């Protein structure tokens, strides 16, 4: 079996698992600072839901998974809110990048990214796939 990889591109994958109760405790402890981690749209989408902690946890997992796929941690000047996890019209999750993360991704040849989310009441899981040019710009 041979791995298929386009000659001009590199495929990168990142995964992350987050314990929902850890995010729940974090949110309860720092209710007034959640906008450091999640964007207004992310917070609004989960607000008032019984499953708010799952909503926030799986989005945090997606942010982590993207950074892993890009091969960086939260680097100098980057913010968690530089990575936004939204839903398209059909409810499918999509990634929107801004700030230093978007700049870093562009500088390292990122052409596209896709994300898949899953969670139970206790575990949140995200997979991110990044397509990047073999030769960074």
């Amino acid at each position, binding site marked *: 079996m041979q791995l298929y990889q386009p000659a001009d591109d590199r495929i990168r994958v990142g995964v992350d698992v*987050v314990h929902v109760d*850890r*995010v729940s405790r*974090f949110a309860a*402890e*720092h209710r007034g*600072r959640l906008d*450091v*981690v999640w964007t207004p749209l992310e917070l609004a989408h989960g607000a008032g839901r019984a499953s708010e902690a799952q909503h926030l946890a799986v989005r*945090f997992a997606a942010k*982590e998974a993207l950074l892993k796929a890009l*091969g*960086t*941690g*939260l*680097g*100098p*000047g*980057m*913010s*968690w809110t530089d990575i936004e996890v939204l839903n398209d019209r059909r409810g499918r999750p999509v990634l929107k990048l801004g700030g*230093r993360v978007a700049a870093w991704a562009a500088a390292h040849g990122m052409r596209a990214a896709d994300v898949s989310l899953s969670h139970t009441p206790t575990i949140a899981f995200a997979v991110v796939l990044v397509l990047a040019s073999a030769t960074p710009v």
Partner: protein
Amino acid sequence: MTEEETLNAVCEAVTDALGLDEDEVTPQSTITGELGAESIDLLDILFRIERLTGTRVQAGDLANYIQGGMTDEEFGTENDMVSAVGLAHLKTVMPQLDIDALVDSLPAEEVISHLTVANLATIVTRYAAVPAG
């Protein structure tokens, strides 16, 4: 706030955020290494430190401080190991590291795992001395 008070505050923040007993956290404990803190824990720790000390250190600032303002290309080699100039800087922010033993063998992405409670307290002290910009 004195350096000792800052260190005590950082110990308290780490202990509470990670749900550990006081005797499990020492100034020499590595936060993400030995104590097992993950990203969400590190955020929790930084928020608690701010509440206890009044000094705000953001996660991205932490990376910038540890990396000494260098670009990734300056800080790491083509093999993603910390470069010579990167190691020289690390000696100033993580003085406990045996730099000579880490030449060409410290993956850049693993640097954060060497950050100790005392290192973080030093960073907080230095940020406290500089007005937020």
